[in-house]
């Protein structure tokens, strides 16, 4: 690690501005925020010294909201209005939630994503998550003493497009600029400092509260390349609690439970599970609101037996991930354990048996993801120069289209490195067909109905032709966050349609605007001032970056081009003095447009330089 930064003679003497950036682990059970201080990644605590923020949100009738421990302690009292493990509902419809009967919430089936009816109104999981993120943002801004440039937010590697989009929406709603959505296992790999001297293949086994992920990574010369990822987005510590809960029901022979009592027993179940990580048996007692009681002993052996099928359920995706990477368990050099549920001894033992080595557990499995996210945020914010690393991640699930007969046609296979883009040509099925329905899917199954529907859109205005004559090119682009956009274009007529894969899951832009408005109804002027301020900051950044690029590589531009850029800068500066944030936004877009060609030439030059160095290294 670089201890001292010494600037070269002739380089800028201005101190490098440290940009405030954080990593956020938005977990099923607990959430955390971390940042890099003096080169070290640290978790930021709240005023009471807690680093974990329970991912629990309680809504009150007067619209007050409790988040964290205050909400956690109320969950037995007020189960309908206290949302725990909201992450399991992100980007999910009612039909996706398996254990709906045992949950105390009043679900509302909404198109796309399920919603929850609370005393403060109907809330989407995105809004609930945004409440958690707002608290973390506040905690970070207080601790760091300034506004955040942005955050890296982690998601399970196995999250699909809808779940990722919902996470990004929640951040936007909480006023957080997302520098990158980062896969949790990849974040853990960074935190383990696997870049230091470690070369080879590593597995990251991540069993959280509600999700299981396995990633196989190759580390080589500062590049973290994810070879494959797999998992189960509905398997986690909560399921272990559920098994203990069922055992308690058998022991107690209770009459039908109230929501509060069910909550109480689930909490007791979790306590018992946690106690069994250090003790060979635990006494489980409970007194219900009905006066019914239970008092029984649970041994570690009994616990292991009742959860054995859950543990083995994690090994199936693990084998698949290894197979996709073209590797065997013996080729894995180290296994990193992530997530609170990896404290469970039978989980550790199963992983050790499978990989025939002791897994790495020296970092706190609850904190390791946030610590890694903070390190990546520091790199993305540009605070680290010279000793940084590069992450090459993959999409976890194949992306495709529905074709005739309800079949899935894969366009981008799973474990493709992102960013990526693929195009495929399709044709019409009927004579004179003038419209085509494009149904975007994610998943591995052959039947479209077995895959997740991400979006539907129509390409209209196709000139009437005989069946099979039209040439419709459908293009998929997945960005570095793993988010998809799809465009369709009829080649002969140029008719186009495209979609940011948002509407069918995730929220539309209008929904976000409405929620933002709801959040700011009492402070309209504030909202306006904030919007104006944001645009001015963006414009300033853009102008500074453009000027710096021109100073460095002005030779790549001719006089006309230089003049055009100067004109756009002047125009933008004029707009910045005015009150209209929309106009400034248009000015930013104009300057971006006029510098695109310049950016392309600069990149060409960078690539030529990099490859020239490469050849010297390889052949020299």
């Amino acid at each position, binding site marked *: 690690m670089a201890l001292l930064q010494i600037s070269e003679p002739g380089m800028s003497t201005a101190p490098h501005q440290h940009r405030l950036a954080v990593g956020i682990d938005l977990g099923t059970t607990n959430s955390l925020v971390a940042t890099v201080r003096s080169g070290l990644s640290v978790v930021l605590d709240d005023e009471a010294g807690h680093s974990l923020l329970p991912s629990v949100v309680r809504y009150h009738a007067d619209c007050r909201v409790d988040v964290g421990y205050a909400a956690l302690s109320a969950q037995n009292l007020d189960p309908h209005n206290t949302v725990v493990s909201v992450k399991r509902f992100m980007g999910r419809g009612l039909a996706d939630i398996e254990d709906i009967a045992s949950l105390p919430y009043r679900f509302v089936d909404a198109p796309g994503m399920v919603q929850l009816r609370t005393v403060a109104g109907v809330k989407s999981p995105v809004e609930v998550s945004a409440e958690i993120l707002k608290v973390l943002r506040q905690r970070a801004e207080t601790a760091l003493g300034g506004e955040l440039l942005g955050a890296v937010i982690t998601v399970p590697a196995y999250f699909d497009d809808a779940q990722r989009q919902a996470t990004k929406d929640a951040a936007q709603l909480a006023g957080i600029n997302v520098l*990158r959505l980062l896969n949790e296992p990849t974040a853990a790999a960074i935190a383990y400092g696997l870049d230091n001297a470690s070369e080879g293949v590593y597995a990251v086994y991540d069993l959280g509260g509600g999700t299981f992920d396995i990633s196989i990574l190759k580390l080589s010369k500062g590049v973290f390349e994810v070879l494959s990822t797999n998992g189960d987005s509905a398997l986690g510590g909560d399921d272990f609690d559920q098994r203990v809960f069922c055992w308690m029901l058998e022991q107690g022979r209770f009459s039908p439970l109230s929501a509060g009592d069910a909550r109480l027993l689930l909490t007791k179940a979790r306590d018992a599970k946690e106690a069994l990580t250090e003790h060979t048996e635990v006494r489980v007692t409970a007194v219900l609101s009905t006066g019914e009681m239970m008092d029984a002993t649970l041994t570690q052996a009994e616990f292991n037996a009742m959860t054995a099928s859950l543990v083995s359920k994690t090994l199936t995706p693990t084998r698949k991930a290894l197979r996709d990477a073209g590797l065997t368990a013996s080729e894995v050099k180290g296994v990193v354990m992530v997530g609170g549920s990896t404290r469970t001894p039978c989980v550790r033992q199963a992983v050790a048996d499978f990989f025939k080595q002791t897994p790495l557990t020296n970092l706190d499995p609850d904190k390791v993801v946030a610590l890694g996210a903070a390190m990546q945020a520091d*790199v993305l914010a540009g605070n680290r120069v010279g000793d940084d690393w590069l992450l090459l991640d993959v999409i976890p699930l194949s992306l495709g289209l529905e*074709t005739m007969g309800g079949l899935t046609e894969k366009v981008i296979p799973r474990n493709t490195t992102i960013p990526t883009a693929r195009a*495929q040509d399709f044709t019409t099925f009927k004579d004179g067909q003038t419209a085509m329905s494009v149904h975007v899917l994610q998943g591995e199954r052959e039947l479209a109905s077995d895959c997740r529907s991400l979006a539907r859109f129509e390409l209209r205005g196709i000139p009437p032709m005989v069946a099979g004559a039209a040439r419709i090119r459908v293009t998929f682009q997945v960005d570095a966050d793993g988010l998809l956009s799809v465009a369709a274009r009829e080649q002969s007529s140029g008719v186009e349609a495209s979609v940011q894969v948002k509407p069918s899951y995730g929220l539309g832009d209008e929904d976000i605007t409405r929620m933002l408005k709801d959040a700011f109804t009492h402070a309209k002027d504030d909202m306006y001032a904030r919007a104006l301020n944001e645009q001015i900051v963006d414009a300033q950044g853009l102008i500074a970056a453009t000027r710096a690029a021109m100073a460095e590589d002005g030779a790549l531009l001719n006089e006309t081009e230089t003049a055009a850029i100067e004109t756009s800068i002047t125009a933008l500066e004029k707009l910045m003095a005015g009150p209209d944030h929309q106009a400034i936004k248009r000015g930013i877009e104009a300057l971006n447009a006029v510098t695109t060609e310049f950016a392309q030439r600069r990149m060409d030059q960078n690539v030529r330089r990099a490859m020239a160095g*490469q050849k010297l290294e*390889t052949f020299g």
Partner: protein
Amino acid sequence: MERQPCVSPLTPNASPVMDFTQTHFELFGLPQSYALNRDMLDSAYRELQNTVHPDRFASQPEAEQRVAMQWATQVNEAYQTLRHPVNRGVYLLKLQGIDALDANNTKMAPAFLMQQMEWREAIDDARAGKSMDALDALSDDLHAAHRRIEAQLAELIDAAHDYAGASEAVRQLRFMDKLIAEVGDVYEELES
């Protein structure tokens, strides 16, 4: 409005979006041949991604971020093409103006077809017998055959310039990939 029938694919495989004048080999500074120095490819790939990846431009203006995404996409595409034995063969033949996966061109040596049927039966037997050992042995066989065809392909393209023969070898490799994927499915079935 009545929903129109769904799309039907025109081409068997999705194709790259980017069209760039440099060949993938030129991009990575490699000789245009089927035989591949994997270390050189990997190291050139890492170097290029280090230069163009969007993470290098996260705090830069949007225009630069967009260009970075296009470049990183292109570099990934090129790397996946050259790294994968079938894709590399298809790509090299395409540079010679030959479509190895042309649907009208399905010529295949009878001996290979026979062998393939035997392998299929072996997969079915392993599945029926729920035998992991049989599956392991079969998997080893398939991978060995895969490597043999790759070696032939290098010979056919790089030395003999026999592109018709190479096209057939590419199609054989594709069959092998499918068989290997089927073995993977059976593993999955037996494990769960």
